[in-house]
């Protein structure tokens, strides 16, 4: 069983009368890439701010690498690298000087790490440039560099692709995959670009209005997101018999309201329709449903 890196139990954060987080139970295991999905104001950044130590919860517990007390959490944050909202820097200092400050704060002995980090995030030529002259994308890269400086065991990234160009997005994705694969870095990543998240995450947490709706692995999500033909007929029993005998498929699900989900013959909806009609069935619906993460998320929160 994998070690738990981060866990919350009934975590609640109140701002006056508003519950930004409402009894959230969340668990991230070592070595996973956790996709944190939710609309604006769902509570993602509040959760990340609590993990980073910017804010404290009103109720509930939070554990980081098995530690729960405030003093232990502070110590354990040395194993954490994070970008909260947009990265924060001293604008009158250069990229290298900003990283030097982070190095001193982290108590890292090796100064070489600064050059290596600038190299990793593609800013080797901009090390001496002052931050006030950096573009949004460059700042985002440097923020990632700052988060990676101590080679953290747990990387928390809040909307890290904001401001990155398409090449930067691909590079970031590859970098995160490599860190996860080669160093076993556990990653929590929140993003609005669900298609991008889907290419990266190995498990997911869906948060809506401060409540954790569901946590599931990539396999579980894929199973739920499978493409299917939605069929509605007058006689479900006869229809399934025809599917089994005439189309040789058992890969279907029967749903209420005389609906069948057929996971087979996806590109052959005409054949399916013709077969059912030829056998005297009345077909009131036949449609292909694409099972993307976006669709799944929208269904989960009750949207269209």
């Amino acid at each position, binding site marked *: 069983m994998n070690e738990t890196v981060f866990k919350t139990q009934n975590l609640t954060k109140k701002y006056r009368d508003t519950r930004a987080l409402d009894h959230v139970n969340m668990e991230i295991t070592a070595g996973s890439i956790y996709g944190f999905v939710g609309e604006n104001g769902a509570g993602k950044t509040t959760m990340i701010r609590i993990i*980073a*130590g910017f804010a404290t919860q009103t109720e509930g517990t939070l554990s980081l690498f098995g530690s729960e007390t405030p003093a232990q959490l502070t110590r354990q944050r*040395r194993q954490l690298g*994070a970008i909260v909202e947009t990265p924060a*820097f001293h604008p*009158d200092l250069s990229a290298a000087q900003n990283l030097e400050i982070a190095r001193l*704060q982290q108590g890292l002995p090796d100064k070489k790490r600064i050059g290596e980090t600038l190299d990793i995030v593609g800013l080797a030529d901009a090390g001496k440039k002052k931050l006030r002259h950096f573009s949004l994308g460059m700042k985002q890269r440097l923020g990632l560099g700052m*988060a990676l400086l101590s080679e953290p065991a747990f990387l928390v990234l809040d909307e890290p692709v904001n401001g990155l160009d398409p090449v930067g997005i691909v590079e970031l994705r590859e970098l995160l995959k490599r860190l996860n694969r080669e160093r076993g870095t556990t990653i929590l990543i929140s993003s609005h670009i669900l298609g991008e998240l889907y290419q990266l995450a190995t498990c997911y947490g869906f948060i809506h209005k401060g409540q954790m709706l569901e946590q599931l692995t990539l396999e579980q999500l894929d199973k739920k997101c499978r493409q299917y033909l939605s069929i509605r007929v007058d006689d479900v029993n006869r229809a399934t018999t025809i599917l089994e005998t005439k189309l040789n498929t058992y890969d279907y699900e029967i749903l209420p309201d005389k609906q069948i989900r057929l996971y087979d013959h996806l590109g052959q909806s005409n054949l399916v329709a013709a077969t059912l009609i030829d056998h005297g069935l009345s077909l009131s619906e036949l449609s292909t449903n694409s099972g993307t993460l976006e669709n799944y998320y929208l269904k989960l929160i009750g949207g269209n």
Partner: protein
Amino acid sequence: MGKLLKSEAIKLLTPWGYKIFLLCSLGIGLLLGVTGVALGGLSGTPMTGYDVLMEFITEPQIVGVMAGIFTSFFIGNEFSHRTFGNAIINGCSRTQIFLAKVIVFMLGLSVILILLPLVATIYVTAIQGFGPINTDILLHILRTIVLTLLGYVTFGSLCVLFAMLIKKPGAISGILIAIFLCLTMFIQLMGASENIIIGQIVRSLFVYQFMLSTHPESVLTYVVVCVVTSIICLTAGLYTFKNTELK
């Protein structure tokens, strides 16, 4: 803690901001020196370097304005740039962050404040001499400098508390300058009051004691007022910082 102090020193010394403060101190110091020479010429009794040192070392208005602006630059900007959060993510406790910030802030503030009267003194000394020097005068100068530095630290403590409460750089400097100027005027107006209670309140105010640091009514009272004010302000500042939700 040593590395955290070093990181604060980089933040203070590397950008242009602090160098500009030093240049301002030099400029204002020179201006005070020129004023000292001119005032001496007008009164017919030339001011010596010693006179200028004693005159300008305890200028609460100048100290208040400089301290307010410096606080906004060194602490307020940390809030507005959201860089306090970086230290927290990097595994430093809020107490460590606060202490490192306060120590470097106090040192930086003391340097720019003491530079003012020193430059004025050097300028006037070069023109009109320092005046007679003996052991008593040297001891008095030494005592005045130590007490004034203690006063600067107390000014700094008040600034730290207000910075932790206000957080916005512009508002920090504006409010601090207004408070120090109003306090100075209040003390000047009420200091001569014959009402025992008002007199006692005014005497217990740190700014009143600071104005007398060259010739305090009682050194013990001066030290107690400064130390108690500093402890109260820094404790309240630390408490506020520990309970602040960072952006």
